[in-house]
């Protein structure tokens, strides 16, 4: 493999790994804050036990999100120096704002929350976890602002081979940001919701503090049901926006080679990128037109047309993303998204019938959902980022032109193996700890007695 491919693999591995933990912390931070709010409002000691139980797991996961995030902050400069020079004027702003407005709040107030149970008044201590939750989600907004600009560059002008900032408001209000941000954050809420639901279900199955964990299961169900519905609607918004701004990505998501009017939604196809064909296809007529333009008659453009158009604008070249990966990632994401809605509403219905704690199949299904949320998040991210290829900044800079010329193959081999190995070990350790503390259940608490002054 050449340096470019290695650099891409390394970025892919470290980013996908980072994105395992981040969506979970987006949702879980909010749920821990909600649990503690219930404790604060009702004084019910069960909610305090739940806050500490999920809080402990949150900190384990959050730690991995932080440490893998440090790598993200620096690896643009390390492996993508030409990219960094090209975009720094614009891309650097949200990264710097993220550190100033989110990371400082997260780290300071998480420290205060972990160590502050005895030191802070109850209301102040509660405010600390809310600040952590808000700052975590705020950091997602900033980083998605940076990412949205790579997908749909706005508010710039090209000066001396670099993209310079021309209109900051345009970047703040980038249409892509406005659809991608809620979709991604809500996906994180599903992840957090399913995590709390699944662990609660596990405890109920084991008949371990079942009465307590039924409370967290119910909160998680409502949270997940709302989040899963809204994830679907915002996903639809994002698809419609993508048709306009990145038609090639949409065509690849559908394996659509030729322009069609009206267009059908593909359920299954065998994609052959060399020959430019999709065979053995099963399609729902009209549905792609609905997805793309909300009506049954409109035209959806195919990859061959868009390729020809891009060659006219940017010169000869292959402007197709890896179609099969994008196509199948999209199907996995959407399929799982629908599954999450079904499971959440199944749970609500069982609750209404008063059978939530006795329904073994539902409880077991909930546990499986924990793992599927990660698959859905990764698939969604693959659609967004692989679908952007071969561009690193859409229609402005090719990925191949963004790589660091001074970093050679051997160096990248060393760092890629190093990161992958360390990340692998940490994943095992974190999974083990979550399983170990998950299994232990919640610690008994007494009102007014705080034991863990120092947790390290």
């Amino acid at each position, binding site marked *: 493999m050449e340096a470019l491919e290695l650099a891409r693999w390394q970025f892919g591995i470290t980013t996908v790994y980072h994105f395992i933990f981040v969506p979970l912390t987006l949702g879980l931070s909010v749920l821990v804050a909600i649990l503690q709010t219930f404790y604060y409002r009702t004084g019910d000691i069960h909610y305090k036990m739940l806050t500490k139980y999920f809080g402990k797991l949150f900190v384990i996961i959050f730690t991995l999100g932080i440490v893998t995030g440090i790598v993200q902050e620096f690896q643009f400069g*390390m492996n993508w120096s030409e990219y960094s*020079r090209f975009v720094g004027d614009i891309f650097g702003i949200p990264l710097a704002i993220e550190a100033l407005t989110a990371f400082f709040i997260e780290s*300071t107030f998480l420290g205060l929350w972990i160590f502050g149970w005895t030191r802070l008044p109850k209301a102040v201590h509660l405010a600390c976890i809310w600040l952590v939750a808000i700052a975590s989600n705020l950091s997602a907004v900033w980083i998605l602002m940076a990412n949205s600009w790579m997908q749909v560059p706005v508010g710039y002008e090209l000066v001396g081979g670099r993209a310079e900032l021309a209109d900051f408001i345009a970047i703040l209000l980038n249409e892509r940001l406005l659809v991608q941000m809620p979709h991604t954050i809500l996906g994180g809420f599903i992840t957090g919701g399913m995590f709390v639901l699944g662990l609660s279900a596990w405890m109920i199955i084991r008949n371990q503090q079942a009465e307590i964990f039924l409370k967290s299961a119910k909160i998680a169900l409502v949270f997940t049901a709302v989040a899963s519905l809204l994830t679907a609607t915002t996903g639809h918004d994002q698809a419609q926006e993508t048709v306009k701004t990145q038609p090639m990505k949409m065509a690849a998501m559908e394996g659509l080679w030729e322009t069609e009017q009206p267009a059908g939604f593909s359920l299954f196809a065998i994609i052959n990128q060399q020959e430019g064909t999709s065979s053995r296809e099963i399609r729902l007529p009209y549905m792609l037109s609905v997805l793309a333009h909300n009506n049954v008659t409109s035209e959806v453009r195919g990859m061959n047309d868009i390729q020809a158009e891009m060659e006219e604008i940017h010169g000869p070249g292959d402007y197709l993303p890896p179609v099969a990966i994008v196509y199948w990632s999209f199907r996995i994401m959407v399929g799982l998204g629908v599954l999450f809605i079904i499971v959440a509403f199944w749970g609500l219905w069982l609750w209404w019938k008063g059978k939530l704690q006795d329904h073994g199949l539902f409880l077991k299904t909930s546990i499986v959902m924990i793992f599927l949320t990660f698959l859905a998040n990764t698939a969604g991210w693959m659609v967004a980022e692989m679908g952007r290829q071969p561009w690193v900044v859409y229609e402005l800079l090719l990925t191949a032109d963004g790589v660091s010329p001074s970093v050679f193959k051997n160096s990248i081999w060393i760092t890629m193996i190093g990161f992958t190995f360390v990340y692998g070990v940490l994943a095992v350790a974190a999974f083990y700890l979550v399983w170990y503390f998950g299994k232990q259940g919640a610690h008994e608490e007494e009102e007014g007695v705080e034991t863990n002054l120092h947790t390290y």
Partner: protein
Amino acid sequence: MDLQTFWFILIAVLFIGYFFLEGFDFGVGILMPFVSKDEVDRRVTINTIGPFWDANEVWLITAGGAMFAAFPHWYATLFSGFYLPLFLILLALIVRAVGFEFRSKMKERWWRLTADHFIFWGSVLPAFLWGVAFTNIVIGLPIGEDMNFTGTLPALLNPYALLGGLVSLVMFTLHGAIFLSLRTTDELKARVEKTAKLMWIPVGVILLTFALLGYRQTILFEEFGIIPGTLPMIAIVSFLAVIVFMNINRFGYAFAATGATIVFGSLVVFQGMFPLVMPSSLDPDFHLTIYNASSSDLTLTIMSVLAIIFVPIILAYQGWSYWVFRERVTRDAIPRS
């Protein structure tokens, strides 16, 4: 003052803040195995920085982000040029953070021993490598016409840069020892105080050697002449004050004095660099300066407004968190498991 100068100062402030704050928590991580006589001591030591280390590290993240936004070429050249050293720093910071957070989660001896290694090496490596990196920046690197580093890894490991690494390593360790004396009690406190006093002379010798050689090794300090000037004098006087304060048992002041040594020593480096950000050893025409490495004025203006609003707020709540946890950590406060 133009925007580029303002941002050069701000990035200097962020790095110096990082060295001051994470400096002492690196020191605590380095000293942890040596000053603790048992498991409880080790936990006391780690808990002295428990609520703080993560927020201290954000100063580095912010410096990185600010550098990316304000001086993209500096960010790109520096981190692609220092590719492998930076990789080691990142790995060290990863295992260190995990060491802190996961250590007390399990009781098994091997688990805690592994975490101790993570914390120790995760503190030693960055404390050393940041010194190596900044010394290299000051000496000048083989930076070519296209602003990219053209050298090799061994070039970064020249003797003077390694001495620079030793300087930051021992200075952070001393800073950490004095911090520990402020956050511990009884026997542990007595041990760290003794360690700090013992360290002072060797640290001074290393600092002095580095400073004297600096006149010969770097082009950037030529302008200082024989009389070093105000900033280096403050750094030297602060360092002398450290031992005076320790001997009259005023460790709070001694901590301020090691802090001042770090702050003013780093200021000397940044002052010496200005207005260059990465001098090229190949050709003065290839220097990266605050002007040819910077973003557009519009970007710098927006960033300035944000920094002026948020930096004071950050200082306020971070300061408040130190105030909340101002009590010393005692052995009794450590849970038994």
